[in-house]
């Protein structure tokens, strides 16, 4: 149950952004993606999640094994915290384990509607959603945005537990997480503009 990426070429709106990205993530590993704004971290994660087609290369991973956590949390403002989590758990065919509420310090917010949460509380709910999917591979795009130090620690502890049970994670972030993790800087993989390449999808027109 691992993720294997070979020579991946990722683009956005028909323009190649990253080229030749290769890495392996085994069970129990965390890979941290780094790189300046606009290099293509979000695009890479979306490609790994299968949400956008890749321009080239291969992604090998068991189907239905990845959970994607984007900037937007998929949290409904008019539903309560419990209802939100129950829904996502059911969609993935699991019950909600009571300990997620403690794991993300949501116990006292259980019955509030999500619209009444502060930015950080909402983000904690979004992270809790990942826990209830029961998926082993986590793809996280700047997961600690808006979190205070205590919540970042909760998040790190969650990831540790997740890894211990055979999970793995790919995390794009600008901040130092307190995690033992491999770091992949994407800067060297920036796609070369000059390299005409039929795989790129607008390049047929050049």
């Amino acid at each position, binding site marked *: 149950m691992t993720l294997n990426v070979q020579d991946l070429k990722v683009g956005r*709106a*028909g*323009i190649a952004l990253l080229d030749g990205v290769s890495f392996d993530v085994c069970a129990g590993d965390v890979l941290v993606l780094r790189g300046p704004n606009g290099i293509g971290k979000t695009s890479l994660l979306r490609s790994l999640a299968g949400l956008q087609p890749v321009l080239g290369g291969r992604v090998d991973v068991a189907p239905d094994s990845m959970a994607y956590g984007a900037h937007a949390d998929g949290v409904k403002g008019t539903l309560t915290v419990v209802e939100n989590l129950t829904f996502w758990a059911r969609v993935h065919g699991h019950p909600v384990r009571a300990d997620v509420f403690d794991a993300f310090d949501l116990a006292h917010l259980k019955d509030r509607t999500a619209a009444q949460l502060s930015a950080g509380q909402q983000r904690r709910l979004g992270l809790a959603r990942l826990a209830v999917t029961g998926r082993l591979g986590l793809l996280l795009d700047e997961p600690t945005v808006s979190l205070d130090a205590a919540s970042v620690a909760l998040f790190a502890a969650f990831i540790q537990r997740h890894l211990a049970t055979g999970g793995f994670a790919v995390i794009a972030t600008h901040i130092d997480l307190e995690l033992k993790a491999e770091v992949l800087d994407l800067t060297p993989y920036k*796609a070369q*503009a*000059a390299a005409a390449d039929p795989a790129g999808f*607008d390049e*047929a*027109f*050049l």
Partner: protein
Amino acid sequence: MSLWEYANPVKFMALSGQVLPWVGGLAALCLGVGLVWGFFFTPDDFRQGSTVKIIYLHVPSALMAINTWFMMLVCALIWLIRRHHVSALAARAAAPVGIVMTLIALFTGAVWGQPMWGTWWAWDPRLTSFLILFLFYLGYIALWSAIEDPDTAADLTSVLCIVGSVFAILSRYAVNFWNQGLHQGASLSLDKEENVADVFYIPLLVCIAGFVCLFLALVLLRTRTEIRVRRIRALEARSRMA
């Protein structure tokens, strides 16, 4: 060499560049001959008087309006199955031509209807289904222009084109069911008794040929423009990344 090679934009540009002047010239020739012949060298009809001459604009544009949609449908299928960019762009290029043809048919029909039926508009099934076709064109074009990403737009409009075709045919039957018509039946079929007289028939055929060529020329021209626009986009993107 397979036909599909011309789906490559570069090849297409080269070929269409050579063909375009000929098609355009032919269109001008046929239309010139057909319309002049039709308007000035045919007798007035014994019942309709000189109004019958609207037929030289009305029938060709009506035919092309429907056929353009069929062409778009074929292009949509080619794009969805084989993903040739040129076919998606050709569908995009054809849509405005088709909607203009529809408008010409509607307008000439209305102008004809005034002397013939004493009204500009009637909810006759043929006219009504044309109006619906116009709406389908409108939605299709609006969807194209509302989406930034060209390939997403191509995909979505193709899906719309296919589903829309099914519903357009359904509407055609629904409208027939709903109202009896005033409009002429088909009169171009070669063996029918009630065919239009030969004096009108031959210039009409020339006009139809002219409209077909005009359509081809316009679609080629617009497809070339669309390809150039995409090329500019790609070049801009490249310079942005450098």
